[in-house]
């Protein structure tokens, strides 16, 4: 099997797991969000990868070329990126307000604050 030929997918999986690991393991709320972002971005790569056609160019009609990459995944990913940006904006603004309310963005410290009466 040609495992190495599919190296894009290995990268996707590596990034995905990296991001996921960060989300789970980090205490810092901002770092969590960064992990989440990496996680989402890996999925964008997955989509882009599957849209690639070997030897194809950008999908703009031009009589010099007859093979084009699939444009649809790009369009989808554009939407997904927007979603990602929006998520990040909401997430970060929540963190800002958490910081204002608790004066910390470390999860453990927040728990400590909450346990106080």
């Amino acid at each position, binding site marked *: 099997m040609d495992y190495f030929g599919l190296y894009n997918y290995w990268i996707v999986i590596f990034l995905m797991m990296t991001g996921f690991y960060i989300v789970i393991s980090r205490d810092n*709320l901002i770092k969590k969000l960064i992990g*989440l972002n990496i996680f989402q971005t890996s999925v964008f790569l997955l989509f882009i990868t599957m849209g690639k056609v070997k030897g194809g160019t950008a999908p703009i009609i031009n009589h010099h070329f007859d093979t084009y990459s699939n444009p649809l*995944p790009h369009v989808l990913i554009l*939407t997904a990126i927007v*979603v990602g940006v929006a998520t990040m904006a909401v*997430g970060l603004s*929540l963190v800002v*307000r958490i910081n204002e309310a608790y004066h910390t963005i470390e999860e453990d410290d927040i728990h400590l604050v909450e346990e106080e009466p």
Partner: protein
Amino acid sequence: MIRENLPALQVVIPLMAAPICILFKNGRAAYGIALAATLFAFGAAISLLTQVLGVGPISYELGGWAAPWGIEYRVDYLSGFVLVLVSGMGVVVQLFSPASIKREIDEEKHYLFHCAFLLCLTGLLGIVITGDAFNVFVFLEISALSSYILISLGKHRRALTSAYQYLIMGTIGSTFILIGIGLLYMMTGTLNMADIAARIGPVATTRTVLAAFAFFTVGVSIKMALFPLHLWLPNAYAYAPSVVTAFLAATATKVAVYVLIRFTFTIFGEHFAFEETPVATLLMPLALIGIVVASSIAIFQKSVKRMLAYSSVAQIGYIVLGVSFVSVTGLTGGIVHLFNHALMKGGLFLAVACVVLRIGSDRIDDFAGLGRRMPVTMFAFVVAGLSMIGVPLTVGFISKWFLIQAAIEKGWWPVAALVLLSSLLAVAYIWRVVEIAYFRKPPEGEDRITEAPVSMLLPMGALILATIFFGLNTEATAGVARQAAEYLMGAVR
């Protein structure tokens, strides 16, 4: 003209109303707009459902592009049914909201509340109506993002951490769904649900499709808070503003269940989903464990909202249980419970919202003596609570009837027994509140607590009446649900 464009308008009207709310930047004007848009959505949903019942599923091509290329909006029995549920709950919650948010949300944020509410409604309606797999993801995120905002509007600072927690979990869930959709697209080259279903046959046994299904199932399980992926839910429900809790509890998780049903039955097909993969053997135990564990946890909660939140986790278990029977009766039970649970849980949360309005707390101990001070509210709580238990004359009974019937048909006695036993757990947690409200003496100096305003009692009363009405006349619920189930199971195609 309106009639043939109704599927698009169903989503577009609430979507357009949201920026108009922003334009006005005024709580009252925003309320008027939001209410009008929600009412329109409700009317549209009812009209669509009647059309579907009359002439069969409706298809609408967005932008005039034919189905596999363009985005298709598709209303069949199930989606019509869920549309009515979601928009109907929207109307009830909107009617209920003014007095409640006045106390729980700052005045200058009211227009934002209405805007986020409309966006959330748009997202939920969009998920249900679209026939395009990627569109599901987009609408899922619209509704999710707006619900994070809605939750973070809560007064307590823990609302922020809850919203954050929900954001992390929710984003992971929807990204998983996105991966699933991507892998499906990879194998079939199309995003139209019907088209995927038609083309998935030859590649169904590939590892890619299996992976797609796995990612999708896990993602959607997070979204619908299936045990043990429910951890985000109790906090989010407990600290969100009361009306938001009522709306989300009644609709958001239900729509996630809709997505599960839609994907497993329409796209993957029940043969693939439940025979080729071990999903059935996984979903059912999780559902059952969820029912028992979450109900038990609910008994020990100090906050009524949290208690009801755990009860929601358990009730999701019932719905998923119905789905995992993979029989017409079971699926009917699941779909009916989806509707019924929305009614009764909405009613319960609205009742709690009334209480919070008057006493500013949802701790169980603070409910003491409310049976006398707020008789209408507590009566509503009791009726909806009885429905949760599954007492006859209420909708909860109808759901249980179908679920148990499905279990008996399959000969799965322990499942039937467990469903019945879990009703007793519901008795325990509901009755705890009732006892305190009716039998415990209120603390001194609480005489000024009065009944909630009529503007809140009426919508809540409507829900409670519906709980009883649909418990007696199941034509509109169980009838449509059975049609939807038969359609999904391919009995009539």
